[in-house]
């Protein structure tokens, strides 16, 4: 479904991605792991056709995605319908006057009649458990609620691939748990999921495969998630886990400790 061949990208001469080769099949759930600045978010932007590679090729469903091709409005709109992106900062994704209109924005553009739009919006509201917010302004919602509305907006387009940039950032533990279960549900329903994260626990639960980015903006490992999570040496090298002096409260017990998940 998604194929990256020797893709590189740089921001005004500063490299963000170097010689990335990646293949993601339909129905897979892939976690992109790596420290801040390793190129995960840039890759997500590239997958969504926001930016284009300086070198190499990006293919989606057999079609090469280039700047020229994305200038064709019909091709570009179909592409954006097939791959949905949930931004890290939900504030940037919400611009309508209330939650209902926000979710209905995509289906209305797809030319559905209002009853069909209403059904789709109601389904999304129910699925994300945000029925009560239907007529509220997105701007006045809490962080977790905004995230749910942002996901609902993308889901309403029924994309085949869902891309999440740091989905657990800024969410309280209860919403995080809900979110992980929701991603599992989505994956079971056949959606292809791509998530960038630092949260190793989330990787273990939602991803079948994990791709590790290193500080040189290249892929240092691409393995089944469980196998990668057990490779503590590699995770330590990638700065995703650390070993430190540690005291357990009350016990007076001190030792070096590795936190893998």
């Amino acid at each position: 479904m998604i194929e990256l061949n020797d893709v590189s990208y740089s921001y005004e001469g500063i490299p963000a991605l170097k010689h990335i080769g990646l293949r993601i099949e339909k129905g897979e759930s892939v976690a992109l792991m790596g420290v801040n600045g390793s190129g995960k978010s840039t890759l997500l932007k590239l997958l969504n056709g926001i930016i284009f590679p300086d070198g190499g090729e990006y293919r989606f469903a057999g079609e090469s995605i280039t700047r020229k091709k994305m200038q064709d409005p019909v091709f570009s709109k179909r592409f954006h319908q097939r791959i949905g992106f949930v931004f890290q900062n939900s504030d940037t994704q919400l611009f309508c006057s209330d939650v209902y209109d926000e979710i209905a924005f995509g289906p209305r553009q797809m030319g559905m009649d209002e009853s069909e739009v209403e059904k789709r919006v109601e389904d999304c509201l129910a699925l994300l458990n945000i029925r009560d917010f239907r007529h509220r302004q997105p701007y006045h919602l809490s962080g977790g609620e905004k995230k749910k509305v942002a996901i609902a907006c993308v889901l309403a387009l029924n994309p085949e691939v869902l891309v999440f940039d740091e989905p657990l950032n800024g969410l309280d533990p209860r919403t995080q748990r809900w979110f992980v279960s929701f991603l599992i549900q989505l994956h079971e329903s056949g959606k292809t999921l791509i998530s960038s994260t630092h949260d190793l626990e989330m990787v273990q639960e939602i991803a079948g495969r994990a791709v590790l980015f290193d500080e040189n903006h290249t892929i240092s490992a691409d393995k089944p998630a469980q196998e990668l999570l057990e490779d503590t040496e590699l995770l330590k090298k990638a700065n995703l886990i650390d070993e430190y002096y540690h005291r357990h409260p009350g016990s007076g017990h001190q030792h070096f400790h590795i936190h893998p998940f």
Partner: protein
Amino acid sequence: MPEWLLKDENYQPLPDRDTFIDKSILSLLRILSRIRAQSGYTGGKYSVHAPWKVAGTFLLIVLLSLSRNLWFLAAVGAYLLAALSMMPAERILRILKTGLVIAFFSFLVLLPSFFMGNRYSLVMIPLKTLATVTAVGILSHTTGWHCVTGALKSFFIPDIFIFVLDITIKYIVLLGELSLDLFYSLKLRSVGKNTGKYSSLSGIAGTLFLRSKEMAEDMYSAMECRGFTGSYRVRRRFRFTAADFLYVMVHAAFIAIFVYLG
């Protein structure tokens, strides 16, 4: 899971004209990358200090506007070309392009005066405009924004005014990045025919307004917590270098040429 979510969407989009999104994204990217490039520019170890550059540019603008002598204009033009030649080609093009476009507009505006017999203005004013815009362009492309605002301290501009300028530049970048993400999001979610393009734009403007209000309130609270009492002191570090001396001499020469030529 609703049934429609379990099936692939059989959807063929209708063509729609929404190039305004791409154009807005491009212009925002251009502004942000320009501010970023300028903020990172320190000018190097041997460059002229910002206060001299600001004063020199101001002096040139005043002398240019007062002068009625074509030779003086030619001398300033030669100096500006020499200064431009030391810059990267991309910046030279950008500065000259802006200057030529503005000079051309002033030429168009003054064109009727040519038919009224005032040939002098038709030549002098566009040339003065070109030289003035080029001088400002050179200043802005060789001096970081923070250096320019910091240089104002030397001209006895109140610290609080400098502070407001610094904060303004900071929030132009922050809100610019936010609006860029909003436009990206609008582009990604525009998967068909958007009948309410203007309402999407007003939604983006509204979100930006609310966000800027929130940022302003947060900053006010943060400043209160940090003990801000209304006074802000800008530190001035200054050492007169050989480059500064040369720059001052060149500009002193311009004053002499101006007085001599009139």
